[in-house]
């Protein structure tokens, strides 16, 4: 697993401790019961802290699954392919 993705998995594990690594990579706000707006805010804060970036508020609405959060992260860190 690429380093960026592995670190993001760790961020998810901190916010959603009940999920294992596989579940995290398949997770979305519809599949995780406690993924509400407060969880999104917490997730954003943990990701910002981990990667030392600032995610603009307009990106929040797209961050509704692991894959989409990863996309936002790649854009904001300049790691996108």
């Amino acid at each position: 697993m690429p380093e960026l993705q592995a670190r993001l998995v760790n961020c998810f594990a901190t916010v959603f401790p009940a999920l294992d690594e596989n579940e995290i990579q398949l997770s979305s706000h519809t599949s995780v019961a406690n993924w509400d707006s407060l969880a999104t805010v917490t997730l954003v804060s943990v990701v910002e802290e981990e990667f030392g970036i600032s995610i603009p508020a307009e990106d929040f609405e797209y961050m509704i699954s692991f894959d989409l959060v990863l996309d936002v992260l790649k854009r904001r860190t300049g790691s996108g392919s």
Partner: protein
Amino acid sequence: MKLAEALRIVQQPTTADAEQTSVYLACGFMPLHLITFLEANLRQLLPHKAAKIETGIYGDLSGNLDRLNKGDASDLVVVFEWSDFDPRLGLRSLGGWGPESLPDIVSDVRSSTARFLELIQLAAKSRVVVVSLPTLPLPPISYQANEQASIWQLQVWDMIGGLAVELAGIANVRVLNRQQLDKASPLSERLDVKSDFTSGFPYSLKHASTLAQMLATLVRLPQPKKGLITDLDDTLWRGLVGEDGVEGISWGLDQQSQSNALYQQTLAALAASGALVGVASKNDHALVMSALGRDDLIIRRDDLFPIEVSWQPKSESVRRILAVWNVNADSIVFVDDSPHEVAEVKAAFPTMECLVFPAGDDQAAYEFLEKLRNLFAKDAMSAEDAIRQESIRRSSELHDAARHSAYSHDEFLQNLEAEITLTLTNEIVDARALELINKTNQFNLNGRRLTSAEFQTMLLRPNAFLLVTSYKDKYGPLGRIAVMLGTQNEQQVDVDVWVMSCRAFSRRIEHKILEYLFDKFGVSEINFAFESTERNSPLQEFFHSVAGQVPQQEFRIDRETFFSNKPALQQRVKELAYA
């Protein structure tokens, strides 16, 4: 602490036997990560308790405080921000920053401060209340240059300052020290505008973490150290008295030894605040006594007791001082300029706080004094603080006198002219009772520590009583030295908490307390919620002497056994009150 770390701490399960303790966090903004940081810090400070944070309704600080005052007695943390005093001082309101609004904002802040003062006064009657006044910069409401303090800003700050002064004067209220927060969290790094807009949480993570750490410390203040043992050469004074002579050692600006003078001044202040200050020095005894006799010494010679001067290892001197003070090593600070001596004492007493005095480095010495002061920090002074050093000295004299007396121990006690004052009540009279419960180790029924809210709750039980004992004899007063907390019915008394200061040992005060309890309540049995701890062997020995057995857990003493085993008791008893 990072947010991810805080989340991991709060997610850890607590042990099954962890005692539940809740703290109510009242604020007008969305508390979000502040809850996480506060809970994580409390978990670290209270590893044996399951700390939970409760909050009220977002945006309604007054209402939350009002509801709390009608509810249970959880300890309370109030975090104010500007918008609590007037919504126009927050970034989520658009009520106007025009010049015409400014007098009205000031007026609103004035009425808000009066309302909050009233609510907190009420809350503090039954719980500890920790208060953080606004920590964020005021928004740009003034029409004047940023560099110019406007009269409106000054009036608002002045009112908040006035509120802080009023709050700090209320018993049970602890106001967060702005100066300390400024050092740890720069003003320009506190506000997170994006977070405020998107979630209503106005703090940067770093500021929230720092603030929560300070708030948690104020909720559960660490027990202050009880005593300090200091070296002399290049510590209490500059120079070596054996080399430089009594007049060659110095402390003061003129002799480039102001840090040593400030150290003396700090020790004098600690002694006046109830800390014990002793001396351990490798030196010539006569020279040291001569140096300590100099009339320009800043700390009073009488504030230093005992003074152990010898050529033996420092740890031996420290051991003798601990015996005289009758305290445990973990409640003591040892200070010496020599890292070697500090290491030697630390090896002998691993739980002791052993510090190197930074001789020759004035900046480091100043920071050292700040640290020292904090190690002895306490919430409030009590009358006992003023007499502690003196009573230890008298106690030592008493034991010396007993050893050298031609009388038996019974006759010796009879000649003490002892008077015990017993105050029986069901209300918290002042902070001294709780202070004793939370700092006493040796004569302690079960080692239980209580928050102010838990103390209050125990006293609200039906038939609860609080028995506070004071003592004096011809050697002087010891002040309030014992506290018992329990309930009583027709048949028996149940004792949940019983502590007595080690200064009061060997006077049969504990026997007199039980005699009083049997007689006052007319019961046939006293039930003790005893638990063995690492340190309560003095209490266990007492129980062995009056009950004929060392208890393993909760146990009873019946009237007949106690009265047949108790020794002769000569103290006069004075009863003060019964509520």
